[in-house]
């Protein structure tokens, strides 16, 4: 206590100096902050009581003018710790874990209050939380489940748009994995703990974390955030369809939908998996180790024949595009101008992508349109590449003949010079 009082005295002197400085430099420096004596002491304290000015200044609440008192109560204007942290002054002390959701909800469920700071910020987080698996377990007395501060952090809570925020799309999976990938922590919940490991190998993780595509899904995209819950077996396609619209539309009309539903199979997940979704290849339609059709269908049946037809068509278009690419690359490396054909190749590739999307209809006639369009573009590009190669050879023949003519003239001149000089 003596140490704390000495520290307080020193801080009071320092504050006098700061006050003097503020008076002198007031015209040049703008300070609009309310006095906050909490940080004077807590910035010198070790964790978990320590909160530095630097840390707190990063907090979105601090940036919007809120201070310690707005959550913890007390009198931040008093330099006397006993007065500042007196129950009389409304000091609540350390916020108990069980109080956190409701405390945050005090403001975040009040549209009139939130509107002052950010009119577009939703105020249903607490209501959603109560519907989530976390919230339901919380209500049932399980204090291990996540509350607001577990995901959003505390005292340095940043806006989700801030790349350093724990709930920024790029960081969400890491944040969830702090609990969900911890086998010890998750003991007793009878759910797997390999989701994060699988997700880290997925095409979605690659898009989000490696390519920086913030529209790529992370945990909360499929499970929700405040209302987090598994999507449910029969609703998986609804989740996937928020991004993969065309695939979902085709699947909806396909014969597979009813078949999967009757067998209680989780739609898209049956062929693509969930957390560890890798980039799909045409091999999925094949009969090799990556094949999925033959897990349910029998060799030689109607569906197997349809599968083989789809795979053949996709292979034909893929090969045609690659052939044209090869010829165009050689022509380009020979200095021929084939940029227009190169550009058209991207249209052929678009057709192949569309055809791959059409696979979800499992109808050859629907896929054929894109296959034929792609094949026609690739054929034209191949022709352009071959024409460029013919032109290249023509140029080289022309060059050879010109060089022979030049050589003859030079030799003639040399002979003439020899003759006149001899």
């Amino acid at each position, binding site marked *: 206590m003596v140490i704390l009082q000495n520290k307080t005295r020193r801080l009071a002197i320092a504050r006098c100096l700061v006050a003097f400085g503020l008076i002198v430099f007031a015209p040049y420096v703008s300070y609009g902050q309310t006095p906050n004596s909490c940080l004077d002491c807590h910035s010198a304290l070790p964790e978990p009581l320590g909160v530095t000015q630097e840390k707190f200044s990063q907090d979105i609440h601090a940036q919007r003018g809120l201070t310690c008192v707005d959550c913890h109560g007390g009198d931040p204007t008093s330099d006397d710790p006993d007065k500042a942290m007196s129950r009389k002054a409304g000091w609540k002390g350390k916020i108990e874990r069980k109080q956190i959701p409701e405390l945050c909800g005090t403001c975040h469920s009040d549209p009139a209050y939130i509107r002052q700071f950010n009119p577009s910020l939703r105020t249903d987080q607490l209501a959603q939380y109560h519907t989530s698996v976390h919230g339901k377990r919380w209500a049932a007395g399980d204090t291990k489940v996540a509350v607001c501060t577990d995901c959003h952090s505390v005292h340095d809570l940043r806006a989700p748009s801030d790349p350093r925020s724990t709930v920024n799309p790029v960081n969400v999976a890491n944040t969830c994995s702090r609990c969900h990938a911890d086998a010890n922590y998750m003991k007793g919940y009878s759910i797997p703990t390999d989701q994060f490991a699988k997700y880290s190998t997925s095409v979605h993780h690659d898009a989000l974390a490696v390519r920086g595509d913030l529209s790529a899904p992370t945990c909360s995209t499929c499970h929700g955030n405040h209302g987090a819950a598994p999507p449910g077996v029969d609703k998986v396609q609804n989740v996937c369809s928020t991004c993969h619209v065309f695939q979902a539309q085709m699947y909806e009309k396909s014969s597979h939908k009813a078949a999967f539903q009757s067998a209680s199979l989780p739609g898209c997940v049956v062929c693509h998996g969930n957390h560890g979704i890798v980039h799909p290849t045409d091999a999925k339609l094949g009969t090799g180790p990556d094949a999925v059709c033959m897990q349910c269908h029998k060799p030689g049946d109607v569906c197997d024949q349809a599968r083989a037809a789809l795979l053949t068509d996709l292979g034909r278009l893929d090969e045609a595009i690659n052939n044209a690419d090869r010829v165009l690359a050689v022509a380009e490396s020979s*200095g021929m101008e084939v940029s227009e054909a190169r550009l058209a190749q991207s249209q052929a590739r678009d057709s192949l992508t569309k055809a791959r999307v059409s696979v979800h209809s499992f109808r050859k006639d629907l896929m054929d349109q894109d296959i034929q369009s792609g094949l026609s573009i690739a054929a034209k590009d191949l022709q352009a590449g071959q024409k460029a190669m013919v032109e290249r050879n023509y140029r080289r023949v022309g*060059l050879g003949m010109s060089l022979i003519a*030049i050589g003859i003239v030079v030799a003639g*001149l040399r002979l003439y*010079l020899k003759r006149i*000089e001899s």
Partner: protein
Amino acid sequence: MSPLRNVLHWLDERLEWDDLIALLRKKTVPLHRLSYWYFLGGITLFLFVIQVLTGILLLLYYRPGANEAFESVQYIMTQVQFGWLIRSVHSWSANLMIFTAFAHMFSVLFLKAYRKPRELTWISGVILLFLVMGFGFSGYLLPWNTLAFFATKVGTEITGQVPFIGKPTMIFLRGGEDVTGATLTRFFGFHVAVLPGIATVLILFHVLLVQRLGISVPPRLELEWSANPSAKREMKFFPNFALRELMAWYIALGVLGALAAIFPWNLGVKADPFAPAPAGIKPEWYFLFMFQTLKLIPAKVWFIDGEILGVLAFGLVGLLWVLLPFFESDHPSHLKRITGLSIFALAYIIGMSIYGHLAK
């Protein structure tokens, strides 16, 4: 008399070119083991003529403007009959011309051909070299591709570093604060009107001086020949030297044709002013030694900005280079000093260009 002789006679009566041919027949060129260096000036002139001819042909289809330039060059390369050849010859010939102009300058330097009374020939020649580099800089932007766009941006930015006149010069060159379609129009004007006009006058002056003063002989040979006039060897300018020059031109034409047919000049990707500059952007090879030097100078040298210091230093060296003959005297130590300086300059240009090419 044959009809052809009739026509020639008719023309001679009016043009009196027999006198000119007689004069050319009287002209001689010194003959020694370094005589082949004398062809370089002629080859440079030949390449300049190629530039003018192919440039005129390109003008038939080229459209200056940020929205049309790239497409018009693409059209020339893909649709116009032999357009690819004309454009590739124009681009390769430009590079070869700059190379032969540099080689010609250094051959003049090492053969000491800039000495009295040929100071004006040297000055006009060095200014022509600068003009040729100006042709290269202005012409590089005309296809309006990404590399050209950013190279021009960097190049004009360096101009902007010159104290006092730098910023206005940069704005004048760019036609505004940034490289835009206005810059392209300006560069087109410089490339097809201003520079060719000045260059043609200077070339005529340069060639006239060569004709008036004759071809220089290296000092050592000059001494030998004055001591022993019987050792002096010469060849007639016409037809002996002229035909050899013609052979050199034919060979240059063959090299040009081969380069154009085997390595047609790349068109690149259309410039996008809003796209970020590609990594490791570099200027054309003939500016590389200066670019690399500027990169190596520290940001601050004493209290002066490194880049400004570099630009000023190059300006000063360029000026001294033009005035080089006036630092020359017949004293052997002076001659050696200038030879040493020339070797250093050549080594520096080659070394820095290679370093710049390899540097990331």
